[in-house]
């Protein structure tokens, strides 16, 4: 009589991650304890239907099995034993995965039908059910939780390596927000060292406005797609990528624009995996801005107890994060804002001394009330040039982060020496030049959000197709907090 064995379980990982291991017919010696060695005969690939794998088990037995079915649409693999030193006869097994959409987990079903020599039915049924299937569940669970699948490159590239269509926003001519034109494009299959991401939320930064206006043509030649950061889920990974897998929730930040789209292929070095608690929109709203706050306060401003910090656009996406974090570090936080409503929000986030000014007039107030600013975070640019000089304390540090009002005219060294001023003009990308640096700063931002040190800025959402509307809002100076595009 034929024996029928069924075992099933739920694995606490996304289906793409589980399937990336199980679809490889030659992977078992990396995760299943009973398998000592595995190789595919004749040098064939582990995803070639008809290939034969040769197992040597830890107990010395040898099994040769042939792959009969492999389906990436049904997450299913069927195989049979062609020769074995254990008496499993006419053995055909099917392994199927299904997504548990309620919680992003994976249902794993494993069953087989086989015959045995008389009298050995029970013994062999138990060997298959417990020794192979149940042990396999436990072993794979351990393999995934220990990150075993993240070490080294995937042995077999994932199959969806075709260009994918993407919606995107293109600038064909530099100019106003209306130059942001929705269109269609393709996201190429990831090459070595790259990953392809299905994006859900894209961060909008003032840099995107400069790119659109043509202020930095070398960074975004025409036609160009703006955007430096986004969050979403990995579709597939190229060769030589370790630590990232299909199905991983990620965010990225990179020095080349192109993020205003729904699917994008980027270097894996730009990418960080997201903690469960950080949603896509929060990640897109906070990655570049939070990391900017991190290097401004820690590396550049060395802000600590008693530092008199002056922050322009204190109710903006960067401003709120800088104010809140600096307040926690013990700084005296002074901020300029353009309305009473913004002053209220800025104060709520930790800017104890908001100055409401629509004309960039603040130097007198800063000098008379605080004796000047030790550190100045300036995103205004030329319109506040003279006021900034006047507002700085002796040995003050002017950090020029942006120039929303227009390009800052050159500053003479003679002017700096008058008050021993230090002038910095940082670009965030130099502070996240390696993946390790990016991961370290991102981890600090997520941790600060988690423990309440950093309060997430309010998020204003626009659809990807309405990027023009988002830019118009940002430039209107009426927004509070961060803007994201939802793809």
């Amino acid at each position: 009589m034929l024996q029928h064995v069924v075992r099933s379980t739920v694995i606490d990982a996304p289906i793409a991650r589980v399937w990336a291991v199980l679809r490889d017919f030659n992977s078992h010696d990396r995760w299943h304890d009973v398998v000592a060695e595995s190789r595919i005969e004749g040098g064939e690939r582990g995803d070639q239907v008809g290939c034969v794998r040769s197992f040597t088990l830890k107990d010395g037995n040898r099994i040769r099995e042939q792959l009969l079915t492999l389906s990436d649409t049904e997450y299913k693999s069927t195989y049979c034993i062609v020769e074995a030193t254990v008496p499993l006869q006419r053995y055909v097994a099917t392994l199927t995965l299904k997504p548990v959409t309620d919680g992003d987990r994976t249902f794993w079903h494993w069953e087989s039908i086989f015959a045995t020599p008389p009298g050995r039915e029970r013994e062999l049924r138990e060997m298959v059910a417990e020794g192979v299937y149940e042990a396999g569940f436990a072993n794979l669970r351990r393999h995934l939780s220990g990150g075993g699948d993240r070490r080294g490159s995937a042995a077999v590239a994932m199959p969806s390596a075709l260009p994918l269509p993407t919606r995107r926003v293109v600038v064909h001519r530099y100019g106003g927000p209306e130059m942001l034109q929705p269109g269609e494009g393709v996201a190429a299959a990831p090459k070595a060292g790259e990953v392809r991401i299905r994006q859900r939320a894209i961060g909008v930064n003032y840099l995107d406005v400069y790119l659109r206006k043509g202020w930095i043509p070398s960074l975004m030649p025409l036609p160009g797609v703006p955007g430096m950061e986004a969050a979403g889920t990995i579709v597939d990974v190229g060769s030589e990528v370790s630590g990232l897998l299909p199905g991983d929730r990620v965010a990225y930040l990179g020095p080349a624009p192109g993020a205003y789209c729904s699917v994008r292929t980027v270097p894996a070095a730009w990418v960080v995996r997201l903690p469960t608690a950080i949603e896509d929109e929060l990640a897109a709203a906070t990655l570049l801005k939070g990391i900017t706050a991190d290097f401004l306060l820690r590396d550049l401003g060395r802000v600590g107890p008693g530092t008199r910090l002056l922050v322009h656009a204190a109710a903006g996406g960067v401003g709120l994060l800088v104010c809140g974090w600096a307040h926690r570090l013990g700084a005296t936080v002074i901020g300029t804002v353009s309305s009473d409503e913004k002053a209220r929000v800025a104060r709520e986030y930790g800017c104890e001394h908001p100055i409401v000014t629509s004309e960039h007039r603040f130097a007198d107030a800063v000098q008379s009330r605080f004796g000047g600013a030790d550190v100045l975070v300036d995103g205004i640019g030329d319109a506040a040039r003279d006021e900034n000089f006047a507002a700085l304390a002796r040995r003050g540090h002017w950090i020029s982060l942006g120039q929303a009002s227009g390009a800052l005219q050159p500053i003479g060294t003679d002017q700096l020496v008058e008050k021993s001023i230090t002038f910095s003009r940082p670009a965030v990308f130099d502070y996240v030049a390696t993946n390790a640096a990016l991961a370290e700063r991102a981890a600090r931002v997520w941790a600060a959000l988690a423990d309440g040190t950093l309060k997430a800025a309010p998020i204003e959402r626009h659809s990807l197709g309405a990027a023009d509307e988002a830019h118009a809002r940002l430039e209107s100076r009426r927004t509070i907090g961060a803007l994201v595009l939802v793809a």
Partner: protein
Amino acid sequence: MIRVYTSSVIDASADTVWSRIRDFNAMPQWHPGIADSRIEDGDSSDRVGCIRHFHTRDGGMIRERLLALSDYDYSCVYEILESPMGVENYVATLKLTPITDGGRCFAEWSAEFDCAEARETELVETIGQGVFQGGFDALKRHFSRR
């Protein structure tokens, strides 16, 4: 053709959960979105081809025909004959699979249908989250109280 797929894990055996959902006329007893239900023409609710006639809590009337019922596979297939949702060619499958590891079961509820393009997103959300996940959530609550 639009496809909606929702799945969950319920902390009771497939037999136990099946006994709660097998009756094609029992939706009001287990699904919080359904107000009342009857089987038309005095049919029995496990006759394949029978039609259930029910109202949702928000007052919508829906008629659905049972197309397949399997006590072996723990599955049932049905189609919508009449509804206010604006769907056509709507066929849904509800299926349980035992999880041998721990006496739980894997529940899947899927549907295929046609609709106006502008309503796709809304219908996928309403059906996938409201109807299907809403039903699973009710089953999860029911069987966690045991």
